[in-house]
Protein backbone atom coordinates (compact mmCIF):
# COMPACT_ATOMS: atom_id res chain seq x y z
CA UNK A 1 0.00 0.00 0.00
CA UNK A 2 1.29 3.44 -0.86
CA UNK A 3 1.98 5.89 1.92
CA UNK A 4 -1.12 7.74 3.03
CA UNK A 5 -1.04 11.53 2.90
CA UNK A 6 -2.09 12.68 6.34
CA UNK A 7 -3.00 16.07 4.88
CA UNK A 8 -5.85 14.41 3.00
CA UNK A 9 -7.16 12.41 5.94
CA UNK A 10 -8.40 15.32 8.06
CA UNK A 11 -9.89 18.61 6.89
CA UNK A 12 -10.34 21.18 9.63
CA UNK A 13 -12.28 23.58 7.44
CA UNK A 14 -15.13 21.12 6.93
CA UNK A 15 -14.71 19.01 10.07
CA UNK A 16 -14.02 15.95 7.93
CA UNK A 17 -12.06 12.84 8.90
CA UNK A 18 -11.28 9.87 6.72
CA UNK A 19 -12.21 6.68 8.53
CA UNK A 20 -8.82 5.30 7.51
CA UNK A 21 -7.33 7.10 10.51
CA UNK A 22 -9.13 4.63 12.78
CA UNK A 23 -8.06 1.55 10.87
CA UNK A 24 -4.80 1.67 8.94
CA UNK A 25 -1.75 0.07 10.52
CA UNK A 26 0.55 2.59 8.83
CA UNK A 27 -1.36 5.52 10.32
CA UNK A 28 -1.08 3.81 13.68
CA UNK A 29 2.67 3.28 13.34
CA UNK A 30 3.06 6.93 12.41
CA UNK A 31 1.05 7.90 15.52
CA UNK A 32 3.43 5.87 17.67
CA UNK A 33 6.38 7.77 16.24
CA UNK A 34 4.97 11.25 15.72
CA UNK A 35 2.45 11.57 18.58
CA UNK A 36 3.30 9.08 21.32
CA UNK A 37 6.99 9.44 20.55
CA UNK A 38 6.97 13.24 20.94
CA UNK A 39 4.07 14.51 23.05
CA UNK A 40 4.12 14.79 26.81
CA UNK A 41 2.30 11.70 28.10
CA UNK A 42 0.91 11.06 31.55
CA UNK A 43 3.12 8.73 33.60
CA UNK A 44 1.83 8.74 37.17
CA UNK A 45 0.40 10.87 39.92
CA UNK A 46 2.97 11.92 42.50
CA UNK A 47 0.81 10.36 45.20
CA UNK A 48 1.33 6.92 43.62
CA UNK A 49 5.09 6.93 44.15
CA UNK A 50 5.98 8.82 47.32
CA UNK A 51 9.01 6.92 48.70
CA UNK A 52 12.38 6.22 47.07
CA UNK A 53 12.13 2.97 45.10
CA UNK A 54 8.35 3.27 44.66
CA UNK A 55 7.56 2.41 41.10
CA UNK A 56 4.58 2.30 38.78
CA UNK A 57 4.47 0.32 35.53
CA UNK A 58 2.66 1.99 32.67
CA UNK A 59 2.75 2.69 28.94
CA UNK A 60 3.78 5.53 26.68
CA UNK A 61 2.04 4.59 23.47
CA UNK A 62 2.81 0.89 23.17
CA UNK A 63 6.16 1.30 24.91
CA UNK A 64 6.10 -0.08 28.41
CA UNK A 65 7.83 2.09 31.00
CA UNK A 66 8.70 2.02 34.69
CA UNK A 67 8.24 5.27 36.58
CA UNK A 68 10.46 5.30 39.65
CA UNK A 69 10.87 7.68 42.59
CA UNK A 70 14.58 8.34 43.17
CA UNK A 71 16.55 8.77 46.41
CA UNK A 72 16.64 12.54 45.86
CA UNK A 73 12.83 12.52 45.37
CA UNK A 74 13.15 13.25 41.65
CA UNK A 75 11.35 10.91 39.26
CA UNK A 76 12.89 8.94 36.43
CA UNK A 77 11.24 6.73 33.84
CA UNK A 78 12.74 4.13 31.54
CA UNK A 79 11.74 1.43 29.11
CA UNK A 80 10.73 -1.75 30.91
CA UNK A 81 12.99 -3.93 28.83
CA UNK A 82 16.31 -5.57 29.56
CA UNK A 83 19.21 -4.20 27.55
CA UNK A 84 20.67 -7.71 27.22
CA UNK A 85 18.11 -9.78 25.27
CA UNK A 86 15.04 -7.58 25.59
CA UNK A 87 12.96 -9.38 28.22
CA UNK A 88 10.49 -7.43 30.30
CA UNK A 89 12.06 -6.51 33.61
CA UNK A 90 9.09 -5.82 35.85
CA UNK A 91 5.70 -7.54 35.70
CA UNK A 92 4.08 -6.06 38.80
CA UNK A 93 1.66 -3.15 38.48
CA UNK A 94 3.49 -1.21 41.16
CA UNK A 95 5.63 -1.73 44.22
CA UNK A 96 8.80 -0.67 45.94
CA UNK A 97 12.10 -2.06 44.71
CA UNK A 98 15.76 -1.60 45.58
CA UNK A 99 16.58 -3.05 42.18
CA UNK A 100 14.89 -4.54 39.15
CA UNK A 101 16.13 -8.01 38.27
CA UNK A 102 15.47 -9.53 34.87
CA UNK A 103 13.96 -13.03 35.12
CA UNK A 104 15.83 -14.28 32.05
CA UNK A 105 19.55 -14.13 32.94
CA UNK A 106 19.47 -12.20 36.20
CA UNK A 107 20.83 -8.82 35.08
CA UNK A 108 19.89 -6.26 37.70
CA UNK A 109 19.26 -2.55 37.39
CA UNK A 110 19.18 0.15 40.04
CA UNK A 111 16.18 2.42 40.64
CA UNK A 112 17.95 4.98 38.44
CA UNK A 113 18.05 2.48 35.55
CA UNK A 114 21.80 1.82 35.68
CA UNK A 115 23.01 -1.73 35.14
CA UNK A 116 24.38 -2.76 38.53
CA UNK A 117 24.72 -6.53 38.41
CA UNK A 118 25.56 -9.14 35.76
CA UNK A 119 25.78 -12.79 36.89
CA UNK A 120 29.13 -14.42 35.98
CA UNK A 121 30.45 -11.04 34.89
CA UNK A 122 34.01 -12.23 35.45
CA UNK A 123 33.76 -15.97 34.62
CA UNK A 124 31.60 -15.71 31.51
CA UNK A 125 31.99 -12.13 30.25
CA UNK A 126 35.69 -12.00 31.25
CA UNK A 127 34.99 -8.51 32.60
CA UNK A 128 34.70 -7.26 29.01
CA UNK A 129 31.21 -5.84 29.46
CA UNK A 130 31.06 -2.06 29.87
CA UNK A 131 28.08 -1.92 32.23
CA UNK A 132 27.84 1.85 31.90
CA UNK A 133 26.67 1.37 28.30
CA UNK A 134 23.84 -1.00 29.17
CA UNK A 135 21.61 1.00 31.48
CA UNK A 136 17.87 1.05 30.82
CA UNK A 137 16.78 3.49 28.11
CA UNK A 138 15.60 6.64 29.84
CA UNK A 139 12.52 8.64 28.96
CA UNK A 140 14.14 11.84 27.67
CA UNK A 141 12.22 14.33 29.80
CA UNK A 142 10.15 13.79 32.95
CA UNK A 143 8.36 16.68 34.61
CA UNK A 144 5.45 17.32 36.96
CA UNK A 145 2.59 19.75 36.86
CA UNK A 146 0.85 20.10 40.25
CA UNK A 147 1.03 16.42 41.11
CA UNK A 148 0.71 14.98 37.61
CA UNK A 149 3.91 13.43 36.30
CA UNK A 150 4.40 13.51 32.54
CA UNK A 151 7.17 12.27 30.31
CA UNK A 152 8.24 12.61 26.69
CA UNK A 153 10.61 10.49 24.64
CA UNK A 154 11.59 13.60 22.70
CA UNK A 155 14.54 15.60 24.07
CA UNK A 156 13.53 18.44 21.71
CA UNK A 157 9.96 18.70 23.04
CA UNK A 158 9.02 22.05 24.60
CA UNK A 159 8.81 22.18 28.40
CA UNK A 160 5.74 20.60 30.00
CA UNK A 161 4.53 24.06 31.06
CA UNK A 162 4.75 25.32 27.48
CA UNK A 163 3.16 22.14 26.16
CA UNK A 164 0.15 22.59 28.47
CA UNK A 165 0.00 26.28 27.58
CA UNK A 166 -3.20 28.08 28.54
CA UNK A 167 -4.79 24.74 29.45
CA UNK A 168 -3.12 25.21 32.83
CA UNK A 169 -5.74 27.88 33.64
CA UNK A 170 -8.44 25.20 33.43
CA UNK A 171 -6.39 22.31 34.87
CA UNK A 172 -5.88 24.39 37.98
CA UNK A 173 -9.64 24.31 38.59
CA UNK A 174 -8.95 20.81 39.86
CA UNK A 175 -5.21 20.52 40.46
CA UNK A 176 -4.74 23.81 42.31
CA UNK A 177 -8.18 24.59 43.70
CA UNK A 178 -7.42 23.42 47.22
CA UNK A 179 -4.14 24.11 49.02
CA UNK A 180 -3.06 20.47 49.40
CA UNK A 181 -3.90 19.44 45.84
CA UNK A 182 -5.08 16.06 44.65
CA UNK A 183 -4.33 12.35 45.05
CA UNK A 184 -5.19 9.21 43.14
CA UNK A 185 -6.81 6.43 45.16
CA UNK A 186 -6.11 2.74 44.71
CA UNK A 187 -5.17 0.90 41.59
CA UNK A 188 -6.42 1.56 38.09
CA UNK A 189 -9.54 -0.03 36.67
CA UNK A 190 -8.23 -1.50 33.44
CA UNK A 191 -10.59 -2.35 30.63
CA UNK A 192 -9.61 -3.61 27.20
CA UNK A 193 -11.75 -2.51 24.27
CA UNK A 194 -11.49 -3.28 20.55
CA UNK A 195 -11.52 0.49 19.96
CA UNK A 196 -9.20 2.95 18.24
CA UNK A 197 -7.71 5.14 20.97
CA UNK A 198 -8.86 8.41 19.39
CA UNK A 199 -12.55 7.60 19.65
CA UNK A 200 -12.88 7.61 23.45
CA UNK A 201 -10.78 10.79 23.60
CA UNK A 202 -13.17 12.41 21.13
CA UNK A 203 -16.15 11.03 23.05
CA UNK A 204 -15.14 12.77 26.30
CA UNK A 205 -13.23 15.85 25.07
CA UNK A 206 -16.20 17.60 23.56
CA UNK A 207 -19.07 15.30 22.72
CA UNK A 208 -21.87 16.45 24.97
CA UNK A 209 -24.23 15.47 22.18
CA UNK A 210 -24.13 11.76 23.04
CA UNK A 211 -24.83 12.24 26.75
CA UNK A 212 -28.58 12.66 26.61
CA UNK A 213 -28.94 9.83 24.11
CA UNK A 214 -26.28 7.13 24.66
CA UNK A 215 -26.57 7.55 28.44
CA UNK A 216 -30.33 8.12 28.61
CA UNK A 217 -30.80 5.08 30.83
CA UNK A 218 -28.32 5.97 33.54
CA UNK A 219 -29.17 9.69 33.33
CA UNK A 220 -32.79 8.80 33.99
CA UNK A 221 -32.03 6.89 37.18
CA UNK A 222 -28.88 8.52 38.56
CA UNK A 223 -29.41 12.27 38.08
CA UNK A 224 -29.94 14.24 41.25
CA UNK A 225 -29.67 17.74 39.75
CA UNK A 226 -31.00 19.36 36.61
CA UNK A 227 -28.36 20.39 34.10
CA UNK A 228 -29.95 22.99 31.81
CA UNK A 229 -27.49 22.29 29.03
CA UNK A 230 -28.41 18.56 28.89
CA UNK A 231 -31.62 16.61 28.61
CA UNK A 232 -32.50 12.93 28.51
CA UNK A 233 -33.36 12.12 24.91
CA UNK A 234 -31.81 15.42 23.71
CA UNK A 235 -35.21 17.09 23.63
CA UNK A 236 -34.32 20.66 24.57
CA UNK A 237 -31.31 22.46 25.98
CA UNK A 238 -30.18 25.86 27.21
CA UNK A 239 -26.75 26.46 25.70
CA UNK A 240 -26.05 29.59 27.71
CA UNK A 241 -25.22 27.61 30.84
CA UNK A 242 -22.21 25.67 29.57
CA UNK A 243 -19.35 25.91 27.14
CA UNK A 244 -16.67 24.05 25.30
CA UNK A 245 -13.18 25.51 25.12
CA UNK A 246 -10.34 24.49 22.90
CA UNK A 247 -7.53 25.85 20.78
CA UNK A 248 -4.91 25.69 23.51
CA UNK A 249 -2.59 23.45 21.47
CA UNK A 250 -5.15 20.69 21.13
CA UNK A 251 -6.16 20.47 24.78
CA UNK A 252 -9.80 21.05 25.59
CA UNK A 253 -12.47 21.66 28.19
CA UNK A 254 -16.17 20.95 28.31
CA UNK A 255 -17.88 22.56 31.27
CA UNK A 256 -21.13 23.63 32.83
CA UNK A 257 -20.96 27.01 34.57
CA UNK A 258 -23.14 26.39 37.62
CA UNK A 259 -20.51 25.38 40.18
CA UNK A 260 -22.36 22.22 41.30
CA UNK A 261 -23.21 19.90 38.40
CA UNK A 262 -20.01 17.89 38.79
CA UNK A 263 -22.00 16.04 41.43
CA UNK A 264 -25.23 15.79 39.41
CA UNK A 265 -24.72 12.08 38.80
CA UNK A 266 -24.49 11.20 42.45
CA UNK A 267 -27.85 9.89 43.67
CA UNK A 268 -27.22 11.57 47.05
CA UNK A 269 -24.75 14.42 46.52
CA UNK A 270 -25.32 16.38 49.74
CA UNK A 271 -21.93 15.62 51.30
CA UNK A 272 -20.22 16.93 48.15
CA UNK A 273 -22.45 19.99 47.95
CA UNK A 274 -21.55 20.80 51.57
CA UNK A 275 -17.87 20.46 50.68
CA UNK A 276 -18.27 22.88 47.77
CA UNK A 277 -20.15 25.39 49.93
CA UNK A 278 -17.61 25.15 52.75
CA UNK A 279 -14.59 25.67 50.48
CA UNK A 280 -15.79 27.93 47.68
CA UNK A 281 -14.37 31.05 49.30
CA UNK A 282 -10.99 29.35 49.66
CA UNK A 283 -11.00 28.36 46.01
CA UNK A 284 -12.14 31.81 44.85
CA UNK A 285 -9.34 33.42 46.81
CA UNK A 286 -6.84 31.10 45.12
CA UNK A 287 -8.21 31.07 41.57
CA UNK A 288 -10.41 34.18 41.43
CA UNK A 289 -14.19 34.56 41.46
CA UNK A 290 -14.74 33.36 37.90
CA UNK A 291 -13.08 30.00 38.33
CA UNK A 292 -14.19 29.69 41.95
CA UNK A 293 -17.88 30.32 41.26
CA UNK A 294 -18.49 29.14 37.72
CA UNK A 295 -16.03 26.32 37.12
CA UNK A 296 -15.14 24.77 40.48
CA UNK A 297 -17.73 22.11 41.26
CA UNK A 298 -19.17 22.19 37.75
CA UNK A 299 -19.36 19.22 35.42
CA UNK A 300 -15.99 19.60 33.67
CA UNK A 301 -14.23 17.35 31.18
CA UNK A 302 -10.55 18.25 30.91
CA UNK A 303 -8.53 16.70 28.09
CA UNK A 304 -4.77 16.93 27.70
CA UNK A 305 -3.68 15.96 24.21
CA UNK A 306 -3.30 13.20 23.24
CA UNK A 307 -4.79 10.70 25.71
CA UNK A 308 -5.45 12.03 29.22
CA UNK A 309 -8.84 13.02 30.60
CA UNK A 310 -9.91 14.29 34.00
CA UNK A 311 -13.40 14.86 35.28
CA UNK A 312 -13.53 16.71 38.58
CA UNK A 313 -16.87 16.20 40.29
CA UNK A 314 -17.31 12.75 38.86
CA UNK A 315 -13.76 12.65 40.16
CA UNK A 316 -12.15 10.29 37.76
CA UNK A 317 -8.93 10.46 35.89
CA UNK A 318 -8.19 8.38 32.83
CA UNK A 319 -5.52 7.42 30.31
CA UNK A 320 -6.07 5.51 27.07
CA UNK A 321 -3.22 3.23 26.05
CA UNK A 322 -3.24 2.27 22.35
CA UNK A 323 -2.74 -1.44 21.59
CA UNK A 324 -2.87 -1.41 17.81
CA UNK A 325 -5.21 0.50 15.50
CA UNK A 326 -8.23 -1.49 16.66
CA UNK A 327 -7.56 -1.94 20.36
CA UNK A 328 -6.86 0.08 23.48
CA UNK A 329 -6.72 -0.24 27.23
CA UNK A 330 -8.55 2.30 29.33
CA UNK A 331 -7.13 2.96 32.81
CA UNK A 332 -9.37 4.81 35.23
CA UNK A 333 -8.64 6.02 38.75
CA UNK A 334 -10.59 7.94 41.32
CA UNK A 335 -8.88 11.26 42.03
CA UNK A 336 -9.84 13.42 45.00
CA UNK A 337 -8.80 16.56 46.81
CA UNK A 338 -6.52 15.61 49.69
CA UNK A 339 -8.49 17.87 52.03
CA UNK A 340 -11.72 15.94 51.54
CA UNK A 341 -12.94 13.89 54.51
CA UNK A 342 -12.56 10.11 54.33
CA UNK A 343 -16.34 9.92 54.25
CA UNK A 344 -16.53 12.12 51.15
CA UNK A 345 -13.60 10.31 49.51
CA UNK A 346 -15.37 7.01 50.08
CA UNK A 347 -18.59 8.38 48.61
CA UNK A 348 -16.67 9.53 45.55
CA UNK A 349 -14.87 6.20 45.19
CA UNK A 350 -18.16 4.34 45.33
CA UNK A 351 -19.75 6.67 42.81
CA UNK A 352 -16.80 6.34 40.43
CA UNK A 353 -17.28 2.58 40.33
CA UNK A 354 -21.01 3.05 39.71
CA UNK A 355 -20.58 5.63 36.93
CA UNK A 356 -17.18 5.21 35.24
CA UNK A 357 -14.85 2.23 35.30
CA UNK A 358 -15.35 -1.45 34.65
CA UNK A 359 -18.88 -1.67 36.05
CA UNK A 360 -19.68 2.02 35.65
CA UNK A 361 -23.13 2.61 34.22
CA UNK A 362 -21.96 5.48 31.98
CA UNK A 363 -18.91 3.64 30.68
CA UNK A 364 -20.98 0.56 30.05
CA UNK A 365 -23.07 2.61 27.61
CA UNK A 366 -20.10 3.90 25.62
CA UNK A 367 -18.27 0.66 24.91
CA UNK A 368 -20.42 -0.81 22.16
CA UNK A 369 -20.76 2.51 20.31
CA UNK A 370 -17.01 3.11 20.23
CA UNK A 371 -16.32 -0.51 19.30
CA UNK A 372 -18.66 -0.34 16.33
CA UNK A 373 -17.18 3.02 15.21
CA UNK A 374 -13.87 1.12 15.05
CA UNK A 375 -14.79 -2.33 13.79
CA UNK A 376 -17.17 -1.19 11.04
CA UNK A 377 -14.04 0.09 9.31
CA UNK A 378 -13.09 -3.48 8.48
CA UNK A 379 -15.39 -2.98 5.50
CA UNK A 380 -13.43 -1.58 2.55
CA UNK A 381 -16.38 0.52 1.33
CA UNK A 382 -17.10 1.62 4.89
CA UNK A 383 -13.62 2.82 5.71
CA UNK A 384 -13.35 4.74 2.47
CA UNK A 385 -16.27 6.85 3.61
CA UNK A 386 -15.63 10.17 5.35
CA UNK A 387 -17.21 11.20 8.64
CA UNK A 388 -17.73 14.69 10.04
CA UNK A 389 -17.61 16.73 13.22
CA UNK A 390 -19.21 19.78 11.65
CA UNK A 391 -21.75 20.92 14.22
CA UNK A 392 -22.01 24.70 14.72
CA UNK A 393 -18.97 25.56 12.63
CA UNK A 394 -18.03 29.23 12.65
CA UNK A 395 -19.82 29.88 15.96
CA UNK A 396 -16.57 30.02 17.93
CA UNK A 397 -15.83 33.12 19.96
CA UNK A 398 -13.29 34.57 22.34
CA UNK A 399 -13.83 35.77 25.88
CA UNK A 400 -11.64 38.47 27.42
CA UNK A 401 -11.76 36.73 30.81
CA UNK A 402 -10.89 33.21 29.74
CA UNK A 403 -8.25 31.62 27.55
CA UNK A 404 -8.99 29.49 24.52
CA UNK A 405 -11.63 29.37 21.82
CA UNK A 406 -15.15 29.10 23.15
CA UNK A 407 -18.39 27.68 21.86
CA UNK A 408 -21.54 27.90 23.94
CA UNK A 409 -23.23 24.83 25.33
CA UNK A 410 -22.23 21.29 26.20
CA UNK A 411 -23.41 20.04 22.83
CA UNK A 412 -20.96 20.80 20.08
CA UNK A 413 -18.12 19.43 18.01
CA UNK A 414 -15.59 22.24 18.19
CA UNK A 415 -13.33 20.37 20.63
CA UNK A 416 -13.33 17.26 18.49
CA UNK A 417 -12.36 19.35 15.45
CA UNK A 418 -9.40 20.77 17.31
CA UNK A 419 -8.42 17.35 18.61
CA UNK A 420 -8.16 16.12 15.02
CA UNK A 421 -6.48 19.34 13.94
CA UNK A 422 -3.78 18.81 16.57
CA UNK A 423 -3.53 15.15 15.60
CA UNK A 424 -2.88 16.19 12.01
CA UNK A 425 -0.38 18.86 13.04
CA UNK A 426 1.63 16.37 15.10
CA UNK A 427 1.38 13.70 12.42
CA UNK A 428 2.73 15.98 9.68
CA UNK A 429 5.29 18.12 11.54
CA UNK A 430 8.87 16.97 11.07
CA UNK A 431 10.05 18.92 14.10
CA UNK A 432 8.56 20.95 16.95
CA UNK A 433 9.40 24.12 15.00
CA UNK A 434 6.68 23.11 12.57
CA UNK A 435 4.06 22.52 15.27
CA UNK A 436 1.98 25.70 15.54
CA UNK A 437 1.42 27.24 18.94
CA UNK A 438 -2.04 28.73 19.49
CA UNK A 439 -4.11 29.67 22.49
CA UNK A 440 -6.65 32.13 21.07
CA UNK A 441 -9.09 32.37 18.18
CA UNK A 442 -6.79 34.77 16.33
CA UNK A 443 -3.73 32.56 16.77
CA UNK A 444 -5.70 29.48 15.79
CA UNK A 445 -6.98 31.13 12.62
CA UNK A 446 -3.56 32.52 11.73
CA UNK A 447 -1.97 29.07 12.02
CA UNK A 448 -4.73 27.08 10.34
CA UNK A 449 -3.68 24.90 7.44
CA UNK A 450 -5.12 25.84 4.04
Amino acid at each position, binding site marked *: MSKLDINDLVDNKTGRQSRLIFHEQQVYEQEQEQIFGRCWLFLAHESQITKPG*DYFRTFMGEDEVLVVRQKDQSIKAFLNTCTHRGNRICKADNGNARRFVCNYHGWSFGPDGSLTGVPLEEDAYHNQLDKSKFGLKQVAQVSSYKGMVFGTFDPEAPSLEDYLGEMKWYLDVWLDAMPEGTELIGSA*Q*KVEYPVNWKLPVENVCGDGYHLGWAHAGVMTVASSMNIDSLSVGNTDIDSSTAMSVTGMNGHSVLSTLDGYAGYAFYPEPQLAVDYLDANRDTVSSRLGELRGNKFWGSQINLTVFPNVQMLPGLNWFRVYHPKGPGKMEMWTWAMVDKEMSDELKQMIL*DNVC*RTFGAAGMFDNDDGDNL*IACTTQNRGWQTRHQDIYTNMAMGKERSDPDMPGIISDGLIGEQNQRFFYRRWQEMMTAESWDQVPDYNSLEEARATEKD
Partner: protein
Amino acid sequence: MSGPLPALNPVDAETYLTFQNLLFGEARLLDNEQYEDWLEMLTDDVHYYMPMPSRYNRDEKDSSKHPLEANIFNDKKKHLQLRVDRFRTNFVWSENPQNQLCHLISNIEVFPTDLEGEWKVLSMVTVYRNRLDGEERRMIVSRTDTWRVEGDKVKLALRNMVFNHAVVPDSNLNVFF
Protein backbone atom coordinates in the same frame (compact mmCIF):
# COMPACT_ATOMS: atom_id res chain seq x y z
CA MET B 1 -16.29 -19.65 62.93
CA SER B 2 -13.18 -17.57 62.52
CA GLY B 3 -9.72 -18.25 61.15
CA PRO B 4 -8.93 -20.31 58.07
CA LEU B 5 -11.64 -22.61 56.81
CA PRO B 6 -11.09 -26.38 57.09
CA ALA B 7 -10.36 -28.37 53.94
CA LEU B 8 -13.67 -30.16 54.05
CA ASN B 9 -16.99 -28.45 54.60
CA PRO B 10 -18.67 -29.88 57.68
CA VAL B 11 -22.34 -29.30 56.87
CA ASP B 12 -24.78 -32.16 56.30
CA ALA B 13 -25.95 -33.12 52.84
CA GLU B 14 -29.37 -31.55 53.29
CA THR B 15 -27.91 -28.16 54.18
CA TYR B 16 -25.47 -28.41 51.31
CA LEU B 17 -28.23 -29.17 48.85
CA THR B 18 -30.26 -26.25 50.17
CA PHE B 19 -27.46 -23.85 49.33
CA GLN B 20 -26.67 -25.51 46.03
CA ASN B 21 -30.30 -25.02 45.05
CA LEU B 22 -30.22 -21.40 46.21
CA LEU B 23 -27.14 -20.63 44.13
CA PHE B 24 -28.46 -22.44 41.07
CA GLY B 25 -31.79 -20.70 41.41
CA GLU B 26 -30.08 -17.34 41.76
CA ALA B 27 -28.05 -18.05 38.61
CA ARG B 28 -31.23 -18.86 36.70
CA LEU B 29 -32.88 -15.59 37.79
CA LEU B 30 -29.84 -13.62 36.62
CA ASP B 31 -29.65 -15.47 33.29
CA ASN B 32 -33.34 -14.71 32.73
CA GLU B 33 -32.93 -11.04 33.74
CA GLN B 34 -35.44 -11.51 36.58
CA TYR B 35 -33.65 -8.80 38.49
CA GLU B 36 -36.53 -7.83 40.79
CA ASP B 37 -36.82 -11.47 41.89
CA TRP B 38 -33.07 -11.54 42.40
CA LEU B 39 -33.20 -8.44 44.61
CA GLU B 40 -35.76 -10.31 46.73
CA MET B 41 -33.08 -12.90 47.48
CA LEU B 42 -30.91 -10.23 49.13
CA THR B 43 -31.19 -8.91 52.70
CA ASP B 44 -32.00 -5.21 52.95
CA ASP B 45 -28.51 -4.58 54.34
CA VAL B 46 -26.74 -6.60 51.67
CA HIS B 47 -23.18 -5.60 50.78
CA TYR B 48 -22.14 -6.46 47.23
CA TYR B 49 -18.44 -5.97 46.98
CA MET B 50 -15.71 -6.53 44.39
CA PRO B 51 -12.33 -4.88 45.01
CA MET B 52 -9.94 -3.95 42.20
CA PRO B 53 -7.31 -6.53 41.44
CA SER B 54 -3.72 -5.30 41.67
CA ARG B 55 -0.66 -7.35 40.77
CA TYR B 56 2.43 -6.79 42.83
CA ASN B 57 5.48 -8.89 43.61
CA ARG B 58 5.22 -11.38 46.49
CA ASP B 59 8.18 -9.90 48.34
CA GLU B 60 7.00 -6.31 47.99
CA LYS B 61 4.00 -4.61 49.44
CA ASP B 62 1.33 -3.03 47.30
CA SER B 63 2.64 0.53 47.10
CA SER B 64 -0.64 1.73 45.62
CA LYS B 65 -2.30 0.71 48.87
CA HIS B 66 -4.40 3.61 50.10
CA PRO B 67 -6.41 3.46 53.32
CA LEU B 68 -9.43 3.72 51.04
CA GLU B 69 -9.96 1.03 48.45
CA ALA B 70 -10.93 1.35 44.83
CA ASN B 71 -13.54 -1.20 43.82
CA ILE B 72 -15.37 -2.49 40.81
CA PHE B 73 -18.53 -2.92 42.89
CA ASN B 74 -19.20 -1.56 46.36
CA ASP B 75 -22.98 -1.52 46.39
CA LYS B 76 -25.75 -1.57 48.96
CA LYS B 77 -29.21 -2.69 48.00
CA LYS B 78 -30.29 0.80 46.86
CA HIS B 79 -27.36 0.91 44.43
CA LEU B 80 -28.14 -2.53 43.04
CA GLN B 81 -31.71 -1.30 42.68
CA LEU B 82 -30.38 1.69 40.73
CA ARG B 83 -28.53 -0.62 38.34
CA VAL B 84 -31.73 -2.65 37.86
CA ASP B 85 -33.76 0.54 37.34
CA ARG B 86 -31.34 1.52 34.57
CA PHE B 87 -31.97 -1.77 32.76
CA ARG B 88 -35.70 -1.19 33.08
CA THR B 89 -35.60 2.23 31.36
CA ASN B 90 -35.17 0.36 28.05
CA PHE B 91 -32.55 2.98 27.14
CA VAL B 92 -29.60 0.63 27.71
CA TRP B 93 -28.79 0.11 24.06
CA SER B 94 -26.00 -2.41 24.68
CA GLU B 95 -28.60 -4.85 26.09
CA ASN B 96 -30.69 -4.71 22.95
CA PRO B 97 -30.96 -7.20 21.28
CA GLN B 98 -30.82 -9.34 24.38
CA ASN B 99 -27.41 -10.86 25.04
CA GLN B 100 -26.94 -14.56 25.76
CA LEU B 101 -25.94 -14.90 29.38
CA CYS B 102 -25.02 -18.01 31.38
CA HIS B 103 -23.96 -18.07 35.01
CA LEU B 104 -22.11 -21.37 35.52
CA ILE B 105 -21.83 -22.09 39.26
CA SER B 106 -19.22 -24.42 40.67
CA ASN B 107 -16.94 -25.15 43.64
CA ILE B 108 -19.74 -24.70 46.15
CA GLU B 109 -18.71 -25.13 49.80
CA VAL B 110 -20.87 -24.43 52.82
CA PHE B 111 -19.58 -23.69 56.31
CA PRO B 112 -21.49 -22.96 59.49
CA THR B 113 -20.61 -19.74 61.32
CA ASP B 114 -20.64 -18.84 65.01
CA LEU B 115 -24.05 -17.28 64.46
CA GLU B 116 -27.21 -19.36 64.46
CA GLY B 117 -28.92 -19.21 61.08
CA GLU B 118 -25.92 -17.83 59.22
CA TRP B 119 -23.61 -19.64 56.81
CA LYS B 120 -20.50 -18.85 54.87
CA VAL B 121 -20.85 -20.11 51.32
CA LEU B 122 -17.99 -20.26 48.83
CA SER B 123 -18.58 -20.65 45.12
CA MET B 124 -17.20 -19.72 41.75
CA VAL B 125 -19.16 -18.26 38.90
CA THR B 126 -18.14 -18.34 35.28
CA VAL B 127 -20.16 -15.72 33.47
CA TYR B 128 -20.36 -16.58 29.81
CA ARG B 129 -21.69 -13.89 27.49
CA ASN B 130 -22.35 -14.13 23.81
CA ARG B 131 -23.04 -10.72 22.34
CA LEU B 132 -23.39 -8.81 19.11
CA ASP B 133 -22.24 -10.98 16.18
CA GLY B 134 -21.30 -13.93 18.34
CA GLU B 135 -18.51 -12.32 20.32
CA GLU B 136 -17.78 -14.50 23.32
CA ARG B 137 -16.61 -13.33 26.69
CA ARG B 138 -15.95 -15.40 29.77
CA MET B 139 -15.30 -13.94 33.18
CA ILE B 140 -14.48 -15.89 36.32
CA VAL B 141 -15.29 -14.58 39.76
CA SER B 142 -14.63 -16.26 43.12
CA ARG B 143 -17.37 -15.50 45.62
CA THR B 144 -17.40 -15.63 49.42
CA ASP B 145 -20.97 -15.16 50.57
CA THR B 146 -22.75 -14.81 53.87
CA TRP B 147 -26.28 -16.18 53.75
CA ARG B 148 -28.65 -15.54 56.65
CA VAL B 149 -32.09 -16.71 57.73
CA GLU B 150 -34.57 -13.87 57.43
CA GLY B 151 -38.20 -14.78 58.18
CA ASP B 152 -38.91 -18.03 56.35
CA LYS B 153 -36.17 -17.50 53.77
CA VAL B 154 -32.40 -17.71 53.59
CA LYS B 155 -31.08 -14.51 52.03
CA LEU B 156 -27.74 -13.21 50.73
CA ALA B 157 -26.27 -10.68 53.19
CA LEU B 158 -22.73 -10.32 51.87
CA ARG B 159 -21.04 -11.17 48.60
CA ASN B 160 -17.31 -10.59 48.53
CA MET B 161 -16.02 -11.16 45.02
CA VAL B 162 -12.57 -11.65 43.54
CA PHE B 163 -12.45 -10.68 39.88
CA ASN B 164 -9.85 -13.01 38.37
CA HIS B 165 -8.78 -10.75 35.52
CA ALA B 166 -6.06 -8.07 35.63
CA VAL B 167 -7.74 -6.33 32.71
CA VAL B 168 -11.51 -6.46 32.23
CA PRO B 169 -12.05 -8.34 28.98
CA ASP B 170 -15.44 -6.89 27.99
CA SER B 171 -16.81 -3.52 26.96
CA ASN B 172 -19.32 -3.47 29.77
CA LEU B 173 -20.16 -5.25 32.99
CA ASN B 174 -23.90 -4.98 32.60
CA VAL B 175 -24.10 -8.17 34.65
CA PHE B 176 -24.28 -9.28 38.26
CA PHE B 177 -21.90 -11.99 39.42
